């Protein structure tokens, strides 16, 4: 079975500090994309960052970066200089390349940003 595991149901971080959210996944395929989505209280699903599995370089989007370890099947999200607006549920997910197969989501990590 293809699964995504987020072992931290809840995390908190002080404003302006850095926090890392963990994610591991399990697939026998070698070609896939990984994503972090953010879900604020409005419940909209907002794409934060994506990583192609064939790329060794870690993706970065402004204050958001990932640590992608393909052999370990690990895909963590680092948020630098945390802001109050970063408070949300964060979901890790992946999709297999080559077809319109569905995203497989983790159970989410609820991030609280403390002022």
């Amino acid at each position: 079975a293809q699964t995504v595991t987020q072992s931290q149901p809840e995390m908190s971080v002080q404003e302006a500090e850095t926090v890392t959210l963990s994610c591991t996944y399990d697939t026998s395929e070698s070609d896939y994309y990984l994503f972090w989505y953010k879900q604020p209280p409005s419940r909209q699903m907002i794409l934060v960052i994506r990583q192609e599995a064939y790329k060794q370089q870690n993706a970065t989007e402004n204050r958001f970066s990932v640590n992608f370890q393909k052999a370990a099947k690990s895909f963590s999200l680092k948020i630098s200089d945390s802001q109050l607006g970063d408070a949300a549920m964060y979901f890790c997910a992946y999709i297999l390349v080559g077809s319109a197969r569905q995203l497989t989501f983790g159970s989410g990590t609820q991030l609280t940003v403390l002022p």
Partner: protein
Amino acid sequence: EPEVTQTPSHQVTQMGQEVILRCVPISNHLYFYWYRQILGQKVEFLVSFYNNEISEKSEIFDDQFSVERPDGSNFTLKIRSTKLEDSAMYFCASTNRDSGNTIYFGEGSWLTVV
């Protein structure tokens, strides 16, 4: 920036009633999806749709669910006889190969069955 739009944003319906949730995917996208998120739970895949037919569906997508692309822009999810356990946020999403398999989500339709 193009976006996926969904209507209604919130619907309350009585158990046993039919519900249609509507979506307008991003215009040049070819793959469409419905996902569901029960309150406090993870996002679950329901169905994918390509070339005017269902590509894949999950075990959740039983006979009471159906999808349709009635014209060139809309993509609908119909629940024929709603049950209490159908209460959830329903997300429409779309993608195409040019977007690198990135799936873009709408803002969701919150369905409450009473």
